[in-house]
């Protein structure tokens, strides 16, 4: 454990963190004692394996059995885009306005977003069940009862191939039941379960969330690193308790299309002849997700120059990269990257990803470095990229890692 106080800016405040209550200590002691004396192994629920075929069948059945929700209060918002701009996920209002189009325009642009309101054909459906994956993997929903009246209406949604943003509002029925809601923390896209950032304002008495109406719902899903087509089917599962302690369930769903440019996987060599792989890169109106994998083979010395910084316990030591595109524009990940985290579950298991770098050895014992960034301002197509990683140290000195720089060309 790191108890080195030179890194600990909060050392003097440590005593100000709430102290462990005596009853907590007692509970721990009692529970440990109980577990030590427990003769049998206690088992607990573990997740079953993902079964995509069954999930797909279930969705079909649900759609047939479902009913289209009756919504009230259709309004034109585009809040879904506004929240992305406020969070910095898309770079500016002007930039977004230039690249935003309605669904009808998407045919003519290279990278376009789709921002749809109900007025423009955002057709939502409410079905009284949950996606099959949830029913199979979460015991708490096994006896849930279908609810046909929608809890929310989706007012608009933004999708550009890399990020999905959904803005909704509790229906009249939903507002009557908000005290019983389980805030949704899963969104299914083409049967893959994603963990979104969700914000809901359910506080009827004290509207402390600025600019939020009571019952407002906002969800943002990072999709940059997921291999999804431009047309996606979105399902938002909702659950709520009822007066008689049953769990009610429903799924709000809609289709939406964005358009992104897909650059194929390419390989290159660094100045020092290390192999570099750039997996498929997606350019969208919200930027470019860019992953680089350096394979230094048995060259531990080169690898170590990255690993020492990545593994350093000094917060200020970091590795960034400068990316120059074929038009001469330079993007510096220190200044222009977006701090993201994506979590999703598919047939291959769990996928966790975020901005940053990892040092590891592959199955063949080769020393590898991977780095992934999202550059929101890189929204235009390019035919080549020059990439130069560099080290930033606590004292402000910065050193290019020229031996690891490379250029990639797209045909």
């Amino acid at each position, binding site marked *: *454990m*790191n*108890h080195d106080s030179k890194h600990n800016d*909060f050392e003097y*405040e*440590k005593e*100000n*963190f*709430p*102290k*462990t*209550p005596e009853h*907590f*200590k007692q*509970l*721990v*002691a009692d*529970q*440990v*004692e109980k*577990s*030590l004396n427990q003769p049998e*192994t*206690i*088992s*607990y629920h573990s997740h079953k394996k993902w079964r995509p075929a069954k999930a797909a069948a279930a969705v079909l059945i649900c759609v047939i059995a479902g009913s289209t929700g009756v919504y009230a209060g259709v309004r034109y918002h585009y809040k879904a885009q506004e929240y992305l701009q406020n969070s910095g996920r898309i770079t500016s209002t002007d930039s977004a306005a230039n690249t935003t189009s309605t669904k009808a325009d998407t045919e003519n642009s290279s990278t376009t977003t789709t921002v749809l309101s109900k007025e423009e054909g955002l057709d939502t459906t409410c079905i009284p069940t949950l996606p099959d994956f949830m029913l199979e993997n979460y015991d*708490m929903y096994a006896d849930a009862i279908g609810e046909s009246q929608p809890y929310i209406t989706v007012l608009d949604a933004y999708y550009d191939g890399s990020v999905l943003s959904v803005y909704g509002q509790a229906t009249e029925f939903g507002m009557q039941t*908000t*005290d*019983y*809601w*389980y*805030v949704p*923390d899963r969104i299914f896209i083409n049967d893959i379960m994603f963990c979104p950032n*969700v*914000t*809901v*304002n*359910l*506080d009827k008495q*004290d509207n*402390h*969330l600025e600019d939020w109406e009571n019952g407002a719902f906002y969800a943002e899903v990072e999709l940059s690193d997921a291999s999804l087509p431009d047309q996606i089917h979105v399902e938002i599962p909702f659950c709520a*308790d009822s007066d008689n302690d049953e769990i009610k369930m429903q799924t709000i769903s809609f289709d939406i299309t964005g358009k992104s440019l897909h650059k194929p996987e390419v390989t290159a060599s660094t100045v020092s002849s290390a192999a570099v792989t750039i997996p498929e890169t997606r350019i969208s109106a919200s930027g470019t997700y860019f992953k680089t994998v350096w394979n230094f083979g048995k060259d531990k010395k080169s690898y170590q120059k990255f690993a020492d910084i*990545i*593994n*350093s*316990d000094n*917060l*200020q*030591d*970091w*590795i960034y990269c400068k990316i120059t595109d074929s038009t001469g524009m330079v993007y510096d990940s220190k200044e222009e990257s977006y*701090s993201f*985290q994506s979590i999703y579950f598919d047939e291959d298991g769990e996928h*966790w990803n*975020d*901005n*940053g*770098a990892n040092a590891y050895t592959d199955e063949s014992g080769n020393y590898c470095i991977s780095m992934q960034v999202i550059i929101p301002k890189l929204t235009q197509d390019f035919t080549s990229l020059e990439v130069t990683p560099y080290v930033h140290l606590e004292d402000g000195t910065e050193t290019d890692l020229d031996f690891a720089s490379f250029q990639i060309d797209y045909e």
Partner: protein
Amino acid sequence: MTKQDFGNLIISFTDDFYRIAKAILKEDADCEDAMSSAIVKGFSKLHTLKKQEYAKTWFSRILINECQMILRKRKREVTYEEGVLAKEAAQQDYSDLYQHLMQLDISYRLPLVMYYFDGFKIREIADILEMSESAIKMRLNRGKLQLRTMFEKEAAI
């Protein structure tokens, strides 16, 4: 690792585990529920722990999972997350630091507590939270910056 050793480890690091739970859930009753479940699961899965030196890290991950389970189950969670709990924290006469921490997004709050208060290394936090080390560094830096901004704004008033 024997069950007795594991039990001793949990008891000796009770303060650290309380801080982790308190950084996520804040309500003492919820912290107790999460810790209680984590202890049960920790003992039941102890045979899967390969290396004794990772016991604290391993148990921390179990505890965080339990805390997150409670978060998911709790109704009105986001409302709590954004405001009500911050008010409750203020009403309960907690320190300024804790009250400001509570206003941070959990993605910043938890790494800060684990790094500065529990003494975990960045590599350990990355392992527990299943994120890259550089992402943890970024969150620690940004979390600190947000905290500092809060204190400066307060001082300016």
